[in-house]
């Protein structure tokens, strides 16, 4: 079935079971990722962005549990898969680069052995073929193949992070989920890793779900952006449209919080207050207490995502199409 989108997340709910009852870290989040697309999922701490990534990888550990919704990969429900199906699915169909990927490598094995290990285990290739492919993978992420013989501690943080990306690409998955893959890196290295990802997207037709707290990073190569706040998607739009005409007050505030090195120096405003405590979410809109445009309706009714322009959705009572 070729018509199903590559990834469709429908009404996903992840709750943490606490003594005082379940707390929803991800609350009815829905989005679609088409082939060749890079979707940027942006949010601050507590927005649920990393929980979404962990739910997709099905690596959530108690007390966090998926309590609702579906995750469809090419129409197949990922959440319904058993361990065996999951093992065949992960890395081959959807792989992951997590924030600490650079620390996820074994310190006692060489880079080459670790990549070869993955290839031999999953594809039953011969060691010789696997070694050639490992060398090719390193080249792909801009690392000299002689580094196959290096141990992780001999590589810089940026190089280890790129090895993490090479591993994620090893089995040619159509989709890679990246959760803050460059947060721990210096700007020059970050720029190199990001351009590498952008290049691979073009070269391999890769689709990427890119999760970050930093809008300026995804502005460069995401085709679409979804903004998360307190576990809910509050706005989704094509990247250009979102930066040109943000509609949700939170998105507007977030964009106004960025300092730039270009253009005139303007007064930074930021957003008053801080993100809400998910254990004590107020009735109505979660952003209301920090919102300068809140109306009476916002105190009682939680807004849901609705279309306000072509391909542009916002969950806000005050915004009109």
């Amino acid at each position, binding site marked *: 079935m070729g018509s199903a989108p590559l990834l469709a997340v429908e009404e996903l709910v992840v709750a943490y079971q606490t003594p005082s009852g379940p707390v929803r870290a991800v609350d009815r989040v829905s989005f679609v990722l088409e082939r060749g697309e890079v979707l940027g999922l942006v949010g601050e701490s507590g927005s649920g962005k990393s929980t979404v990534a962990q739910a997709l990888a099905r690596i959530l550990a108690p007390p966090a549990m998926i309590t609702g919704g579906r995750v469809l990969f090419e129409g197949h429900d990922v959440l319904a898969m058993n361990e065996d199906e999951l093992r065949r699915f992960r890395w081959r169909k959807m792989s992951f680069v997590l924030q600490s990927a650079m620390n996820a490598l074994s310190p006692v094995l060489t880079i080459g052995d670790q990549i070869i290990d993955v290839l031999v285990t999953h594809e039953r290739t011969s060691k010789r073929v696997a070694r050639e492919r490992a060398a090719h993978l390193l080249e792909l992420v801009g690392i000299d193949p002689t580094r196959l013989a290096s141990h992780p501690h001999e590589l810089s943080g940026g190089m280890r992070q790129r090895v993490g990306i090479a591993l994620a690409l090893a089995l040619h998955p159509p989709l890679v989920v990246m959760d803050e893959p460059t947060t721990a890196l*210096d700007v*020059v290295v970050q720029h190199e890793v*990001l*351009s590498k990802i952008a290049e691979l997207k073009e070269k391999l037709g890769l689709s990427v779900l890119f999760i970050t707290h930093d809008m300026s990073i995804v502005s460069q190569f995401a085709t679409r952006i979804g903004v998360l706040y307190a576990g809910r998607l509050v706005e989704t739009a094509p990247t250009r449209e979102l930066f040109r005409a943000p509609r949700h007050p939170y998105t507007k505030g*977030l964009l106004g919080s960025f*300092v*730039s090195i270009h253009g005139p120096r303007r007064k*930074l405003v930021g957003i008053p207050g*801080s993100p809400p405590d998910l254990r004590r979410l107020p009735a109505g809109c979660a952003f209301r207490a920090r919102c300068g445009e809140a109306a009476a309706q916002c105190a009682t009714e939680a807004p849901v995502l609705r279309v306000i322009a072509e391909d542009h959705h916002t969950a806000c009572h005050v915004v009109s199409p």
Partner: protein
Amino acid sequence: MSVPDRTPPLLEAQHLGKLYRVGGWLRPKHLRALHDASFTLGHREILALVGESGSGKSTIARLCVRLEAPTSGRILLDGRDVQGEARGHATLAYRRRVQMIFQDPFGSLNPARTIGKHLERPLLLHGKTKTSADLTTRVHALLDTVGLVPAPEVAAKYPQELSGGQRQRVAIARALAVEPDLILADEPVSMLDVSIRADILNLMLDLKEKRGISFLYITHDLASARYVADRMMVMYAGHIVESGPSEALLQKPLHPYTKLLLSAIPDLEGSFARGLPARSGAPALVDPPPGCPFAARCPDVADVCRRETPRPVSHDEGRVVRCHLYPEPPRTRSE
């Protein structure tokens, strides 16, 4: 020539160097964390210290708050050498002038102590108050200053009841308790959410304007440095490679490393296709080779760069660059 202004700057670093002994007991090596760093910081001024990890910016901070002693060079406060003074009492006197706030607002506060207690301690330790009624008034005034209101309510809270941004305000209030002239702020916003960074940066600007407090703002983020700092210094491998007024430096960077750093910054308006003028790579800090530390990565490298370490050269508009590309300051007509 007119008589030069002899009022000494608030803080002056002269040829600071710091070596750490690493590795082998029989054949020790030396990690050069800081090399020949000189700068001044004036009253009511924010000076940003910008660099990537390992550039030596935190080493400068540690030397400036006297957590460590420099291997060479000296630090002057109001023109007086602070290193010669005895430890102990002198340190306390120094701390009354120079305070520090750290990156992690979660690690720098004691979870078993209320916010009020955190602020009482420096007030008592530095003899800022005598009576308990006055103590409470002062604590509340400090909280007011940093915008944590209602103050009596906040004073009764514990750190874990506050958000990251609020905790960083407490850290600033604690630094303000001794009425310092200078605050060293080591990445004070990098662990905070983007939407609350603005508040802390604006608070720093406010304290400078209204109270005349100077800041040494240490960061890896050029954009926020531009926002708060009057002047900035760019560091690479323990060297201050370039310094000058923030706008002038960013509009027309001179040092190839500054150019690289600027082009690598993701920006909402920037385009990504453009490549970088140089590649990433870590400089050798342990027993470094002679010459410019950036030579191995520099697109404009010449032979002299591998032989001789460039010296800082002053240019127009208070700019200083440490690069063989700019050997002589441009001549000014009046001379």
